[in-house]
C-alpha cells in the first residue's frame, strides 16, 4: 500500500518533468502541422488571397499537372539515388571504423565522420560550389593535369546536388552500419570462413544480413533528409531544378501561394513517411526472420 503510493508519487514527478516538452512540441510541432494540413485545403482567389472555402483543388493541380508529377518523380529519384550511393559507400567506411586495431586511427575516422555533422549545411554546400564551379578547384586541377582543355560545367546540375547530398548525409548511413557491424560476434565470421566460405561469401551470408537493420535505419534517415532539404539544391543545383523542396520554397517565398505550398508540403511529407514506414517494416520482418 505504502509502496504503490511511493511509485505513484515518483511517477507523477517524472510526468512533471516530461510535460513541458510535450506541451512545447504540441504547440510548435503538432499544431503547425495540423494548421498546414488545413491550409492545404483552403482555396485562393486570383490574387492568391486565402479564401475561407475548402476544396481539393491544390491536390488536383499537384497530381494532374505534368510539371509537378515530374517534380515528384525526380525528387524521389534524387533521394533514392543519394540513399543508394550513401549505403554503398558506407560499408567500406564502416568496415574501416570497426576493424581497425589502432585506437588513434579509429579516433581519426570518427573525427572525419562526425565533423561534417557539426558544420553548418551552408558551409558544406558552399565548399562544393568552390570545388565544382567553372573556375573552381576541380576544373583547375584537371586543366593543370591536362586531362581537359576547357572547364567542365559541373555546378547547377542534378549531379552536383547528388554529390553534395552524399557528402552531407554519408555519416548518417555509416554510423548505424558501423554499430551493427561492431555487434557481430567475430566467431560467426570465423565459423563461416572455417566452413570454407571465402571472405566475399562471408560478407554476403553473414555480415550483410546482420547489418541490414542498421543499413535500413541509416537509409531511412538519408532518404528523408535528401527528400526534404532545400538549401543544398538551391545553392548547388539552382532554383530551376525540378525538386519538391525547391517548388515548396518558391511557392511560399516568391509566389506567396501558401495553400499550394502547403499542399506540396503535405505531399512531400506523406511520401517521406511512406518510404520510412516501408523501410522500418522491412527491417522488422528481417529481424524476425533472423531470430527464427
Amino acid at each position, binding site marked *: 500500500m505504502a509502496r504503490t503510493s511511493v511509485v505513484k508519487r515518483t511517477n507523477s514527478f517524472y510526468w512533471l518533468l516530461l510535460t513541458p516538452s510535450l506541451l512545447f512540441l504540441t504547440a510548435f510541432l503538432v499544431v503547425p502541422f495540423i494548421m498546414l494540413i488545413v491550409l492545404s485545403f483552403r482555396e485562393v482567389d486570383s490574387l492568391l488571397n486565402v479564401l475561407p472555402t475548402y476544396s481539393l483543388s491544390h491536390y488536383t493541380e499537384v497530381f494532374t499537372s505534368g510539371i509537378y508529377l515530374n517534380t515528384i518523380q525526380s525528387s524521389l529519384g534524387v533521394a533514392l539515388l543519394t540513399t543508394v550511393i550513401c549505403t554503398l559507400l558506407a560499408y567500406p567506411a564502416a568496415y574501416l571504423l570497426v576493424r581497425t586495431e589502432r585506437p588513434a586511427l579509429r579516433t581519426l575516422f570518427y573525427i572525419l565522420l562526425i565533423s561534417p555533422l*557539426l558544420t553548418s549545411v551552408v558551409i558544406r554546400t558552399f565548399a562544393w560550389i568552390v570545388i565544382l564551379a567553372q573556375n573552381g*578547384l576541380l576544373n583547375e586541377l584537371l586543366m593543370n593535369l591536362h586531362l581537359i582543355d576547357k572547364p567542365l560545367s559541373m555546378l547547377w546540375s542534378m549531379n552536383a546536388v547528388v554529390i553534395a547530398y552524399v557528402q552531407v548525409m554519408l555519416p548518417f548511413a555509416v554510423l548505424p552500419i558501423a554499430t551493427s557491424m561492431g555487434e557481430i560476434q567475430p566467431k560467426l565470421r570465423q565459423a563461416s570462413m572455417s566452413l570454407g566460405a571465402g571472405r566475399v561469401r562471408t560478407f554476403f551470408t553473414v555480415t550483410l544480413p546482420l547489418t541490414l537493420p542498421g543499413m535500413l535505419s541509416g537509409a531511412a534517415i538519408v532518404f*528523408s533528409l535528401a527528400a526534404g532539404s532545400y538549401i543544398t539544391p538551391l545553392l548547388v543545383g539552382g532554383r530551376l531544378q525540378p525538386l519538391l523542396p525547391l517548388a515548396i520554397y518558391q511557392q511560399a517565398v516568391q509566389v506567396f501561394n501558401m495553400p499550394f505550398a502547403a499542399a506540396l*508540403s503535405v505531399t512531400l511529407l506523406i511520401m*517521406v513517411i511512406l518510404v520510412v514506414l516501408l523501410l522500418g517494416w522491412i527491417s522488422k520482418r528481417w529481424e524476425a526472420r533472423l531470430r527464427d
Partner: protein
Amino acid sequence: MTDSNKRLPNGSDPKPKSGRRRVRRKWSLLTTLVWTAGIGVYLFLVAPMFVIFLSAFSPTEYPTFPPSSVSFRWFTALFTNSDWGEALRVSLILLLIVTPLTVILGTAAAYALGRLKFRGREAIRSFMLSPLMIPQVVLGIALLYEFTSLGLINTLTSLVIGHMVIAFPFVVRTVSVSVSSLDPKLESASMSLGAGRWTTFRKITLPLIKPGIIAGTVFSVVESFGEVSISLFVSSPGNITVPVRIFNYIDQTFDPSVNAISVLFIAVAVVAMIIIDRAVGLTKVL
C-alpha cells in the same frame, strides 16, 4: 559429402600452414581494395572542409591548388563589413536563449522517458526525435504559417522557437544514452536514506548524467549556430543569423569573405568535438 571428405584429410594435414597462407594472401588483396575504398570515402568526407581552409587563406577569389601564397584579406573583409558583426550578434543572442532552454527541456524529457514505464513510451520517444527526420522545408513552412497567424513573425521569438525545435532531439538523444546507463538503485538508495526527490535528482542523478548533458549542450549549440533551413523562413531583415547571411551572400553574389567566416564554423566544430570527446568519448556519441 564430397566436400567434407576432401576437407577432413586436409585438416589433419601436417602442413596446414601453406593453406592458411594462401587464404591470407587472398585476404590481403581484398583488404587492400576495401581499405582503399574506405579511405577514399573518408577523403571525400573531409574534402570540403579542406577546401574551405584553402580558400580562406587564398589571395585570389577562387582558390588554387597548390596554394600560391597565404593571405588574410578575407578575414579583414570580415571585420570591415558590419553585416557580419550584426549577424554574429543575433546568432550569439539566440545561442544564449536557445541553449539553456533546450538543454533543460531535453534533459528533463530524456530522464523522465528513461524512468517512466508505460505503453506508448517508445512512441513518445520517436515523436520527440522526429524533428530530425521531418523534411526541413515542411517544418519551415509550417512554422512560418503558424508564426504569421500568431503575429510572431519578425520577432526573435520565432527564431528561438524554431531553433529549439531543431536542437531539442539532439539533447534528448545524448542525455537518453547517459540515463540508460544510470542504475536506478543509486537513486532509490539515496531516497531510502532520507533524501527527497529533488535532492536526489540534484545530488545523484544530475552528476551522473552530466556527460550526456554536456554532449547535448554542445550539439544544441552547434545545431542552433548552424541552423539555416528554418531560420531562412522565419527570420526577418532585422534578425539575420550568420548562416542566413552566408546563404544570402552565396545566393546573390559570390563573396569570398564567406570563406573566412566558414573557418569560424570549422573552429566551432573542432571545439565541439574536443568537448564531446572529453565528456562522453567521440566513439559513443551517436
